[in-house]
């Protein structure tokens, strides 16, 4: 069993409160997490400026180089994680064991996170829209056109309350170190692995350890303390969390994506060409991400699209996590899968909604102590159907019949919108739609993120204030 102490500005802290995390199926204990209370977090937060100072002792260029090394180490190195030496294989085994994610998906997420670190210079170039990082480091500087610009850092360290369900989301906070800001992380209660391995890789790469706090554990007050004591934080949660922090400039909320594929009338007759794209968008990463497609809108052929998707997705079986073909993650919280299935049954009891995967066997597969949900495809006769804009944490998609002219008024919040259309007017309307955060024009799978584009809000805009600065003479 691995001991994971809390990390307080780089120093391990042994707590008297220890949470155990166990293998999702066998119940075998995997790690002991040393948890701390809100008081420690609040008190540590007062030292955040020391983390920034330690990072400011290095130039952005130096930090970028070290982040690149950290990316290599994260992907391939054997690292000191807690009281263990963790190989890359240990890492994916442990992550799979406590989260129920198939090993193949854990591996894919390693590549994703490592990519961001290894290409951090390009990613920062894109996030800053080409700004010289020394301007951010210094607080001001002259642009090429000779104009003084000033970006004021809004925090010394970014807080992040992280989820357990999708290790890919860590890409969002990884660039922070190169911006000379510390990290205050609450790892997901069953997925401490990525934050601890990133920490280990960064320290091994020569980044000051005092830039990091890691407060593991399930306690709700840990997250609350991070959000209230860091001047800038990100949190991952459900609709309730989004509502709670809506409009709070200190908190960037990442919640359900309700990502969608929209067919324009000009392309919908060719829907068969895009069937693989739809299947991939719905099912990649086990359908657990906010960037997975949860609704497909089209004005016609919707029944055929839904039937074709059901034919492809319906037969997918729940396989053991070490099976290379495993495409579904287990629900490890007791009763969660059954509760979701109950919600879906309620959805398709609506007369406008048809359950298209019904013929492909039971969807709820209970294998105590865990359960799986096999993919679900629904057909909705109109955007008014209760399932039209729902999202669940497994491959589930609603194919919605909706006239093109009513689509943008019907889709609601959409994190990733893939619009398959060449209609210039429709494209212009899509570009103007404030409902869509990340717009893909053309047949691009919704989970296919170009990391050289900002995702779910620009980190730079969140962390810096673009303000006036005048210098005499």
């Amino acid at each position, binding site marked *: 069993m691995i001991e994971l102490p809390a990390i307080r500005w780089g120093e391990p802290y042994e*707590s*008297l409160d220890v949470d155990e995390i166990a293998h999702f199926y066998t119940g075998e204990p995997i790690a002991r997490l040393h948890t701390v*209370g809100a*008081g420690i977090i609040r008190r540590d937060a007062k030292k955040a400026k020391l983390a920034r100072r330690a990072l400011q002792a290095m130039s952005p260029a130096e930090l970028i180089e070290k982040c690149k090394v950290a990316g290599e180490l994260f992907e391939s190195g054997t690292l000191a994680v807690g009281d263990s030496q963790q190989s890359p294989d240990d890492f994916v085994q442990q992550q799979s064991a406590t989260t129920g994610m198939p090993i193949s998906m854990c591996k894919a997420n390693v590549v994703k996170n490592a990519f961001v670190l290894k290409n951090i210079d390009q990613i920062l170039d894109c996030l800053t829209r080409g700004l010289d990082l020394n301007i951010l480091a210094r607080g001001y500087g002259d642009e090429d056109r000779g104009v003084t610009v000033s970006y004021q850092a809004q925090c010394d360290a970014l807080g992040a309350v992280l989820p357990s369900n*999708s290790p890919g989301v860590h890409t969002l906070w990884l660039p922070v170190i190169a911006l000379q800001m510390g990290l205050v992380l609450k790892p997901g209660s069953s997925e401490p692995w990525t934050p601890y391995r990133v920490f280990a890789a960064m320290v091994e790469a020569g980044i000051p350890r005092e830039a990091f706090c890691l407060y593991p554990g399930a306690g709700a007050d840990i997250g609350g303390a991070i959000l209230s004591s860091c001047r800038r934080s990100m949190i991952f*949660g459900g609709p309730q969390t989004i509502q709670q922090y809506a409009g709070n400039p200190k908190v960037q909320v990442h919640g359900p994506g309700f990502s969608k594929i929209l067919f324009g009338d000009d392309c919908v007759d060719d829907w068969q060409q895009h069937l693989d794209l739809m299947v991939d968008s719905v099912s990649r990463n086990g359908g657990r991400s906010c960037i997975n497609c949860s609704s497909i809108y089209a004005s016609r052929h919707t029944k055929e699209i839904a039937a074709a998707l059901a034919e492809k997705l319906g037969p997918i079986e729940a396989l053991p996590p070490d099976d290379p073909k495993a495409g579904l993650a287990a629900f490890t919280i007791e009763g969660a899968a059954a509760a979701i299935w109950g919600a879906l049954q309620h959805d398709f009891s609506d007369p406008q909604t048809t359950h298209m995967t019904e013929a492909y066997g039971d969807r709820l597969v209970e294998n105590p102590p865990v359960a799986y949900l096999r993919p679900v495809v629904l057909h909705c006769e109109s955007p008014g159907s209760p399932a039209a804009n729902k999202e669940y944490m497994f491959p589930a998609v609603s194919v919605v019949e909706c006239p093109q002219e009513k689509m943008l008024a019907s889709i609601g919040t959409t994190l990733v919108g893939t619009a398959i259309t060449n209609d210039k007017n429709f494209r212009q309307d899509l570009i103007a739609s404030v409902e869509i955060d990340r717009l893909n024009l053309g047949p691009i799978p919704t989970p296919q993120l170009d990391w050289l584009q900002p995702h779910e809000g620009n980190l730079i805009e969140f962390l810096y204030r673009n303000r006036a600065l005048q210098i005499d003479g």
Partner: protein
Amino acid sequence: MQYFQVVGVSLGHSATPTHALPCSPQSDPEIVSEEQPNAARDLLDAHTVETIAWHFHESTGCPFWLEKKSQLKFDPLTEIRSYDDLKKFDPFEDDWLRGGPVRRWVPKGLADKPVYVFETGGTTGVPKSRIAIDDFRTDYSLFSNTLPEEFFPQGSNWLMLGPSGPRRLRLAVEHLAQHRGGICFCIDLDPRWVVKLIKKGWMDHLEEYKKHCIDQAVTVLGAGHEIKCMFGTPKLIESLCLGLEERGTSLAEQGITGIFSGGTEFTPQWTKFCIEELFGGPPEESGIYMTPTYGNTLMGLACSAPVTKENQYKISYYAPQPRAVIEVVDFDDHDQVVGYGETGRVKLTTLTQEFFVPGFLERDEGEREPPYEKYPWDGVSGVRPFHRLASSTTVGVY
């Protein structure tokens, strides 16, 4: 034994005991002899019979229990001969305490005394009410005798950093201060509003309200009242220490030497953090002594065995037996006490002249602790919210 002297005043509601409980937080816990628990048990049995005789006699009992008596399948006056016989009663339902008339809880034998009513809950709906006459004074006078003089000097003034309003705690702490020759300063703190803020998710408001409370405390501490002792909940002690740190000062600099606190948030880990980081070390280094307590409006106040770094800040509570009894019972069979060191649900019994509560199941769980010399009866450690009530399922977290 000194122990019997304490017990001797337990039913005399108007008497304020002057004898120390058989404990001193400065003493090392010692293994109990075989005779002590037996003697304590004998006394508890006798006290139980005496308490039942009072509450179920037509001339002294309260209307609630006299009415209940007519529904019982046994006669408590003849069939309760020991503490264990209390199992004949159905578990006490705290819902009985909601709503009036509150006078139905006042024993006829005390009807001419001035009566307080204390409430618990009440954020929404009707709160639970408990009548009190002198119990809170008796409990806290007994507790007073456990406090080390070095850190809780007689005559020093107190700060009550806890809930105001219709709460037992507020008057009890004030009595404690007065009992020790001091004067108690209080703050305004409405815990029902705090619960509403949390339920609404108004965390910024919650922070501001907490600051408002801490500001009141800091103002009082800095106003030259020579306050040396205080009560505080763990969260408020923590916030006060952090608030003072922000102002460049500390509890020790403000003159605080003795603190008592309580509740399920008073965990070993919190104590470790508080003593090592907020106070700056154990009492001999920081000059601040803190003692945990466990209790509620129904029971009164349970003291703790000494809490030290050497014993991993383990907190073990012992009820002020025989006035109140703590048992750690099986989660499903509430008449069955679990083995020592095993986990179970906390069951409270209150046996005072003012109030009789047989077998109330608390919303907490913990491990059963063996008796020891200072408290020769069962205790409970590791008190935390009862897991079956505390657990909740989170679905769809991204």
